């Protein structure tokens, strides 16, 4: 029992620390997560880590799901919830505080200037994360074509993305995209 609590506490503080350095989200700190989980804590092998990452991609929800799975692997369902709360808690509190500070700047005439400056950088970063994922996923011409078709569908039509993903999966079962 004490052993379990010890592991949960270790998991909690490791994830809480990662939470506060995760600028750019979970994908940006994956190498650091790997270092902590595999090399420092020896909670699992590198192959286990890769498998959990693939599993997180398979499920709906944010990229932070991989952290929930790491917690699950280390300490079961309790581990999954401790890891999720710890990876999101500190950054969420910081975000909430930052939002209120930002709202207090309401009278500051240059506030809109800062917001306007951030928007295009944000779009560039979304583009970068799509590109990074595409580089990993597009191992064949068909996969590349699926990426382009999905991008065009979302950018220029109002097709529900569910149909885009379902159609891609269906085409994939033929075995051309792997």
């Amino acid at each position: 029992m004490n052993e379990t609590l010890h592991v949960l506490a270790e998991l909690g503080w490791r994830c809480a620390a990662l939470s506060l350095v995760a600028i750019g989200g979970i994908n940006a700190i994956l190498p650091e997560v790997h270092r902590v989980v595999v090399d420092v804590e020896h909670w699992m092998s590198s192959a286990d880590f890769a498998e959990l990452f693939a599993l997180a991609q398979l499920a709906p929800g944010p990229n932070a799901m991989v952290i929930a799975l790491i917690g699950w692997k280390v300490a079961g369902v309790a581990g999954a919830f401790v890891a999720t709360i710890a990876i999101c808690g500190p950054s969420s509190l910081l975000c909430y505080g930052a939002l209120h500070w930002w709202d207090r700047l309401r009278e500051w005439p240059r506030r809109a200037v800062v917001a306007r400056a951030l928007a295009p950088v944000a779009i560039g970063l979304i583009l970068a994360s799509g590109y990074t994922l595409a580089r990993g996923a597009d191992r064949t011409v068909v996969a590349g074509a699926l990426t382009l078709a999905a991008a065009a569908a979302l950018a220029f039509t109002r097709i529900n993305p569910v149909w885009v993903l379902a159609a891609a999966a269906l085409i994939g079962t033929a075995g051309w995209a792997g």
Partner: protein
Amino acid sequence: MSNGATAHASGLPEAEGLAHVSRGALFAASLKIGLLGFGGVMPWARRVFVDERRWLTDRGFAELIGMCQVLPGPNVVNLAVIIGSRAQGPMGSLIALTGILFVPVVIVLVLATFYASVATSPWARNAIAAASAAGAGLILGTATRLLIQTRPPVRGLVMGAAAFVTIGVLQWPLLWVLPALVAAAIAWEWHAAP
């Protein structure tokens, strides 16, 4: 988009449509994003918040995402905190987080339990590989749509391109590049703003 223009004139684009969103509506929207967000939640967040519910304009969405990216933590989790707070204060943040984050956690745990039997099937692996490729496309399409809708000036396009090339193509460490990009973007906008 006339709605967007007036909203922006008030200087508070992100707060405009969110002030009177009920807790139930907030949870329903967050849950939808959490449950449908296969291969990335960002495309769904934009679709639900901007296209379907019209709580935000494209410009307001891009500005909020910018703020979420500068702060540490998962971007979509930060977005849930902000949108929830705008609608219903601290309780709203918790409601949005529950829908976007905790319900998918339960699903992923169920999935993890059955994973071993699915992972060995070749057709499932092929379907997942194809869906991942399309998922990357959805994110690229979301960025393209935001670009078209917000029509940034040349200085914005330059800063956006700089972010894409340094982080996406060159894979430089975000922790160092992002502060520099943000500082440069604000300085340029500041200098150019009327």
